[in-house]
Each structure stands twice: as C-alpha cells, then as structure tokens.
C-alpha cells in the first residue's frame, strides 16, 4: 500500500490517469443511479435488481458482437429489451409489493436479483465478457496517459441519456404524470392519472436506463453474471448522497464515486476495490445518519 502511494507521488501523471478513468466510468454509474432514484422517488421501492439489469444490458450488447453486429447497436437494443422486461417484471411482481412495507419489496427484488444472476450464468456462462467496439486508444502526455475512445463515447453517451431523460420528464405528458405521481400519488389519482401505468412506465424506463448503461459497461469494461450487486450498491450510494430527483447532483456524485473508487482500487490493491465500495456504503450511511441524529432525526 505504501509502495503504491509512493508510486503516485513519483509519477503524478498516474493520478491524472486514475482520475480520468474514474470520472469516465462514474458517468455510467450515474445513469443507473438516476434510474434507481426515479423508481425510489416515484414508487417508494428500492430496486436491488438494478445491477443485474446493468449486467443483462451488457450481455445483450455482447450478444450483438456474437452475431457480428456493431456493439453500439447494443445500446438502443438493450434499452428496448430491458424496457419490455421491466414492464413485464412490474406487472408480474413489483405491482403486488409496491404498496406494502418497503422491506417486502426489498426482499422481492433481492430474490429477482439472485434469480437473474444464475439465469445469465446459464445463458452466457461464468466468464468475464467484453465486447470489442473497434475503436482505438488515445495517448496523452507523451504516451503516459491512455484514454480508450470507447470510454469517451460511453461518457458522452451517458451524459446524453441524462439530458434526454430531463427533457422527457419536463416536456412530455408522461413525464409530467411521473413527476406528479412522485409528488403525491393519491392526488395524482384523483386528478385522473392512471398511477398503475405510470408505475409500469417508470419501472420500464429504469430498466431501460440500466440496459443502456450496461451496454456501455460491456464495451468500455466488462460484465459477469455475478457482479451486478456492486452496481446496485453504487446506485444506492449515489442516490443517498445526491438525494432523490436531483440530476446534476447525481452526475456529480457518480463522477466522484468513480474517481474515489479507482483511486482506492489502485492504492489498496484491486482485490480490495469491491470491499471498498461496500465499506464506503456503510460509512456513508452511518455518516448521514449521525449528521441527521444531531438534529434528532434519522434516515427513514
């Protein structure tokens, strides 16, 4: 560990490299996090299966390359497939737990995540998969910092998706209905909004966001059937830090998480990177709760 810190001091450009990598992946975290915030804010459900949707999106894009198609095609295709899947899951399961105690929906989505993990394992096998995008790599600072173009594309794509989502929520009728339901579902129902359909659409959009994020993940990084849960936890952390329904804060928190995670992964060693994510989750929760506790309140 001390060696790694010394290395960073000796070669400051390495810090630039790590921060760049972190920020680029952070935007993808932010997309999944915004989906989680949407479902949480509108339906009061914490969707544990989030990370598995991301992985599934990745596997769909990977499947595209197996069929000799461009993996970038996977972004819209994964979003579409997951939108349909999300709506199906909503009508089959989420709909029955949405008005119950939050622990029930937590456990139900956790069950779904276990189910999907092994289903993906059965379909695509337990190897780590990546999709070759065919883009090359830029070298900066005299070949000391490398940036693969696909990461830049993923970063820009993630920001574009965020922008589209804001426009959708602000401008369209469905977007308005979603925001109205988030504010007060009962009043929305009184005013003639079919909240059941709004919930279905929200859940579908969340799944689609995860799918698109996953398609970027498989091109820029890699996917594996059993590594979904870290993505869920990252989304959850970002939402806790940024709050519900604040997109710029979600993006900032996502970038910050990506950067700090990459730094920690380098300093502590890659085998501790996932441990860092989960420890950070606990630390953030305890910290938030302690700060609220000073005002005689608590996280609830």
């Amino acid at each position: 560990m001390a060696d790694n810190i010394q290395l960073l001091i000796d070669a400051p450009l390495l810090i630039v490299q790590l921060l760049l990598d972190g920020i680029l992946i952070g935007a993808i975290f932010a997309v999944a996090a915004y989906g989680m915030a949407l479902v949480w804010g509108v339906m009061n459900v914490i969707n544990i299966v989030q990370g598995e949707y991301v992985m599934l999106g990745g596997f769909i894009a990977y499947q595209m390359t197996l069929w000799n198609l461009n993996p970038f095609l996977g972004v819209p295709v994964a979003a579409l497939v997951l939108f349909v899947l999300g709506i199906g899951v909503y009508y089959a399961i989420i709909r029955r737990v949405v008005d119950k105690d939050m622990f029930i929906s937590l456990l139900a989505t956790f069950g779904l995540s276990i189910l999907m993990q092994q289903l993906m394992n059965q379909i695509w096998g337990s190897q780590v998969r990546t999709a070759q995008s065919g883009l090359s790599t830029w070298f900066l600072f005299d070949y000391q910092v490398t940036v693969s173009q696909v990461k830049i594309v993923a970063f820009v794509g993630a920001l574009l998706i965020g922008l589209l989502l804001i426009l959708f929520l602000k401008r369209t009728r469905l977007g308005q209905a979603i925001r109205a339901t988030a504010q007060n579902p009962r009043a929305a129902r009184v005013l003639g909004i079919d909240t059941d359909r709004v919930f279905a659409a929200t859940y579908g959009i969340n799944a689609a966001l995860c799918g698109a994020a996953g398609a970027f993940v498989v091109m820029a990084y890699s996917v594996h059937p059993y590594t979904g849960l870290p993505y869920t936890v990252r989304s959850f952390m970002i939402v806790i830090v940024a709050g519900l329904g604040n997109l710029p804060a979600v993006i900032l928190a996502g970038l910050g998480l990506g950067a700090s995670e990459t730094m920690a992964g380098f300093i502590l060693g890659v085998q501790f990177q996932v441990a860092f994510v989960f420890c950070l989750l606990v630390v953030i929760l305890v910290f938030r709760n302690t700060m609220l506790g000073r005002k005689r309140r608590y996280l609830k």
Partner: protein
Amino acid sequence: MNGRKQTVLALVIAVTALALPFLAPDYRAQIALLWVMVLFAMTWDILGGQTGYNSFGNVVFFGIGMYASAVVQRDSGLSYFVALFLGMGLGGLIAVAVAAVLGSMVLRMRGHYFAIATLGLGIAAAELAAGWDYIGAGSGMTTPLFPGAPGNQYLFFCYLFFGLSAVVFCLLAWLYRTRFGLALNAIRDNEDKAEAMGLRTGLYKTAAWMIAAFFLGLTGGAVGNLLRFVDPRDTAFAGATYGVWMVLMAILGGKGTLWGPVLGAVIFHVTQELLWTHLLGWQRVALGLIIVAIVVFFPQGLLGWARERWPERFGHKVEAS
C-alpha cells in the same frame, strides 16, 4: 397453544431429534445441517422478527465464528476437541464484540436503511476476508480431520447442533417472556413511542443483536468443521445463500413468533434437500422464485396465517361478532 401443550410438543420434538440420527443414519450430515438452519432462523428472528430490524448481514457473525475456529485449530496445536470448543467460544466472543461495535453504528438507522447497510456489511466482510492472506485469502482454509470414524463425525455434529438449538430455543422462550422481550416488541411496534416511554432503545437493539451474534459465532465455529473447508464467499460470508436463507426461513414460518422460525427452517431445509439435487445449476433461480413467491403471496408466514385463521388457539381473545 397453552404452556403445557407447548412443553409436550417440545418434548416430543426433542425425543424425535435425539433418535433421528439412528433412525436415518445415512442422512446424518443433512440432519446436522437442519439444526444449523434452525439456529440461523431463530437467531435471525431475535432482531428481524421480534425487534423489527431486518438484517441481511447476520451472516457476518457466522463467518467470524468459522474463521476464528479455523485459525485456532490451525495455530494452537491443541487436540481436536479442545481446539474446536476453544475456537467456537472465541468465535462467539469476537462476534459479540463486532456486533456491539457495528450495532452501535448501524442500528441507529431505521427500516430499509438498516437492511441495506447490513447487506453491505455482509459483502464487505466477504471481500475483506477474500483479500486477507493470514486467513488464506480467496482460497480459504481447511479444517482438521475429525478423529475417529467418519460416521461418528456427523453423529457428533448432529448432537452438538441439536444441543445448541435446544439451548437457544429455551433461552429465547424465556427471553421473549421477560421485560427484555417486551421491550423488543415495543421497539418493533413503535420505536418513537418506546423511546418516549423511557426505553433505552439503542441498548436493547444492540443487546438483541449481540445475543444473535454470540450463537451465530458458536454455530459458525462448528460448521467449519462439519463442511471441512472455509471459503470466504461461498461458506463463511455466504450472503446469497445462508444470509438470505435466514431471512427466508424466518418469514416462511412466521417472523416474530417462537415456533415460526423453527417450522420455517425445517420446511425449507427438507424441501431444499429433496429438490436441490434435481436442480443442478438452477438452484439460485429456484431460490429466487421461492423468495419472490413467499414474499409476494405469503408475507406473514405459516404461523402468521394460522394465527389469523384460528386466533383463539394462539391465546388471543376473540369477541363473538
């Protein structure tokens, strides 16, 4: 059920349990695991059912016990049984200490935040153990061979885990009747009111978690020797199997009741042993489906459902309508 009937039932179960390893000698390993499952469900229910704090992270204490016992057996150079019991005891104590420290931090959160924080704790523990060379890192540890015939090994563990379950059951039966148990239920029903009545809710919650941690630590210490190996992600801190099973078994039987977790554990374990071998590679799909089905259609559990159906049998007075 009144007190006397319960005692008779408990005695019948105890006699059956004592005879079971001889009635079905081929299934001794599974019977030993059955009592482990009962222990899982009962200890989970102390905080999950009685206090209303649903933990996904109790498996941390189990894993701590497993590793503590394995390390003692590896490094102490004592004979098998001395090292085993010393390791179990040490595991239990470390688990209690960890529960006290973690509890004072995470138990201040309410509801689902607590659930997610403990989910994080469970996986963080697994990842940390998988990176720590002293305890074998990712490849885990093996535990020493049981002295004597292999059949006796399972017989020993059958009775060890049954004894432990019986102790925990009697302890909980007594505990839930005391002021302590009432305080836990008060916290579950309305924590703000309980606090306003002057209960030190933080102490009660942490104490409840520490009790669960102690017995999970003991259990873990022995399970390492039953399974013969300790793996950070698949046995010790197995959040996706043991960690979820605990919750599921307690809910299936009926959380917040004394007998519910026992019933749920027995049903779950027997079903699992009957079905699992036919579902090679699809176990988790089946588990996921079971979780969803139980949670969606049966959230009160068997005893919760029975209590609603026949309230007078559970000692509730029913007004004739």
